[in-house]
């Protein structure tokens, strides 16, 4: 092995990246571009539910009850109907999320000290939204009850007071949680570029040309990966700038550590792609594999939206073999918690281990193909 040849491959590869505008876009700018796009879509705040009401009581108390439910902005009274039959089509079309039925005799029962039944019909299609709606309605309803039915001093009617605090992200701004997490997904783009570059050399036949030179398989692969990791660092930096300047996400950690661990992440992803590229003949297939193996599962399994499921060993394993799972954690810890390497030893070492093992496998299988 010679360092000179390794550097020659690296240099050639960097030139390839810099000279081809599309490739340059893919490796450097596209992560920042995708980050802007995805962040806007993913940073959803708590949803407003639209409500349809069937008030069969029509008393001042039932109106007061409704007014207290809709007094804040979370529930939005959009429809008032006069019969049960009108409720179902609205739910079926999805124009309302919740229907509330106040029975006849509601006020009389409440005044008489009996329990009045109020029925809420909830669209359960989306279980997340559905349970949110149930929680919201029952707490608003309980608040109304507490306001009208207290016999003692109002303060003491709720003996336990709850003080909540969200650490690291005080306002629970979803943008601040999502942007660092999404970095893990958008930083797969340089890996895609490498996958395409490796297969393109095969498809266009330039690999044969390279094999006729004294360059060894090792030098070829390592030189290529190194070139993409180095240019990938530019994309990591650009994406960071977008996160901090555009989205104003706090960056509490260390910049050098961020770049070091981004390189670690690139290594893990790119080494896996080297193995894959040894068996793949076309760019088309390479793209499919990167898309279906790295990118799409990352949205579900990497702990981006819901935390990594610890339900079964199988689901834990599938999440942990995805490099993005570890980088979602690393990125959030650096951005929001501002902690040092000591708190991230585990994900950092897992990524490094994955990278080195995959690179070794890639080199072994590569030699066979060339020789």
């Amino acid at each position, binding site marked *: 092995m010679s360092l000179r040849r390794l550097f020659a491959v690296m240099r050639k590869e960097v030139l390839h990246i810099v000279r081809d505008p599309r490739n340059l876009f893919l490796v450097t700018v596209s992560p920042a571009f995708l980050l802007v796009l995805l962040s806007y879509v993913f940073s959803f705040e708590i949803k407003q539910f639209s409500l349809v009401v069937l008030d069969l009581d029509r008393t001042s108390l039932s109106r007061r009850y409704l007014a207290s439910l809709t007094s804040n902005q979370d529930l939005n009274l959009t429809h008032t109907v006069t019969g049960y039959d009108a409720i179902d089509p609205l739910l079926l079309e999805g124009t309302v999320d919740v229907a509330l039925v106040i029975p006849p005799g509601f006020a009389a029962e409440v005044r008489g000290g009996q329990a009045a039944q109020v029925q809420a019909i909830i669209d359960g299609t989306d279980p997340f939204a559905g349970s949110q709606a*149930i929680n919201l309605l029952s707490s608003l309803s309980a608040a109304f009850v507490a306001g009208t039915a207290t016999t003692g001093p109002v303060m003491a009617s709720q003996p336990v007071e709850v003080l909540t605090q969200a650490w690291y992200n005080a306002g629970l701004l979803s943008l601040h949680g999502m942007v660092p997490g999404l970095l893990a997904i958008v930083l797969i783009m340089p890996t895609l570029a490498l996958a395409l570059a490796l297969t393109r050399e095969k498809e266009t036949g330039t690999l044969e040309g390279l094999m006729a030179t004294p360059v060894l398989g090792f030098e070829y692969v390592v030189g290529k990966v190194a070139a993409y990791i180095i240019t990938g660092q530019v994309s990591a930096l650009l994406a960071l700038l977008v996160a901090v300047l555009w989205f104003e996400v706090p960056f509490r950690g260390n910049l050098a550590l961020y770049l070091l661990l981004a390189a670690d992440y690139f290594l893990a992803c790119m080494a896996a792609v080297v193995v894959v590229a040894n068996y793949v003949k076309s760019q*088309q297939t390479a793209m499919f594999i990167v898309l279906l193996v790295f990118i799409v599962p990352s949205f579900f399994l990497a702990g981006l939206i819901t935390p990594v499921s610890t*339900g079964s060993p199988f689901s834990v394993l599938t999440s942990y073999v995805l490099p993005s799972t570890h980088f979602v954690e690393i990125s959030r810890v650096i951005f929001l918690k501002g902690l040092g390497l000591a708190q991230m030893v585990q994900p950092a070492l897992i990524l490094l281990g994955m990278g080195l093992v995959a690179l070794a496998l890639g080199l072994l299988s590569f030699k066979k193909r060339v020789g």
Partner: protein
Amino acid sequence: MFVRIWNVIIKELIQFARDRLLTGFILLAPVLQLLLMAQNVERGISEQPVAILDLDRSRLSRQLIVDLDNSDELQVQFYVDNYEQIHELLDGGDARLAVVIPAGFAERLLAVRQAAARQVQVQLFADGTNTMAASVTLSAAGNVLSRFSADLAVSSGLMVPEIIDFRTNIRFNPTMDIRDYTIPAQLGFIIYQVTLAVAALGLARERELGTLEQLMVTPLRHFELTLGKGLPAIAIGGLNFGVMWIISLTVFDTPMNGSPLLLIALSLLFITTQVGWGLVLSAISRTQQQAILFVFIQAMVDVAFSGFLVPVKNMPEALQMIARFVPLQHYLAILRSVMLKGAGLEELWRNAAALAILGIVMWGLGLRAVARQVD
């Protein structure tokens, strides 16, 4: 004419079958993907690790801890002695929520009947890095605490119990099964990926390899070439849909409340629309690499606006407008409505019409783009 289209179709299918790896990937990967994801979304956000700092250590505080542990969302895993340890557990991501029960908790609550009664403060600290998990755990703990509080108030005569008996009735997905919600969407999404990618690469590949010129000297007309390229992609997408649909019904017991025929018809409409767009992308790309880049960015945009991960209703108005032009968004709405709600064409005609219009526009653009590419 039909013979010529047929010939192009056969040629496409032969080429497709020759690339073994790609064939295997397109036919098998979606199935694996469905199995894998269904496995993982099963539980949603449940049993999140909770740390407890109990400074009271009374019967009442232990009762509260049991109540917290009994909720589906929370699982008490750590008992700590001081605030310092809470910091460590939240920093390390080992616990997602910390609950601090103050000293004198039981004493003050039991004295609640007396005039000098004071409220007791329970503190909740959540790890806000994952906002969804944080709000779910906070609201779960908040609910447990307010129930606990209300029970105490009732038992000490401060409040009349159950003055409003609040009943909830959940429609369409009565058990609130997360799988039933996500699987139809995953089904749609996976079909989307495959169809678009197959369609998008066809022409760019011919152009790059120089075989497009050979096709140009044959008597093939533009629309025959376009159809010959598009129909196999539709067939592959349709096959994928069939396999995955059967898997989701049999393996995952996803409900099928609406008309299967309607679902099949609308799925074919969607696949056709999507293939049309793929043809446009492939006709305007000069190289495969460019086509791949287009498909990739297109896929990201479509996923973002599809309502797959984030309900469209939650988006700002301007983004909701954009979402109307994304076929995948209409198709996911159709899949969920037909399979879970049992909706028919009366409820879905808007989505169906949008798909049809988008389809016509895309095939029109596709034909023009192919004509320009070839000439």
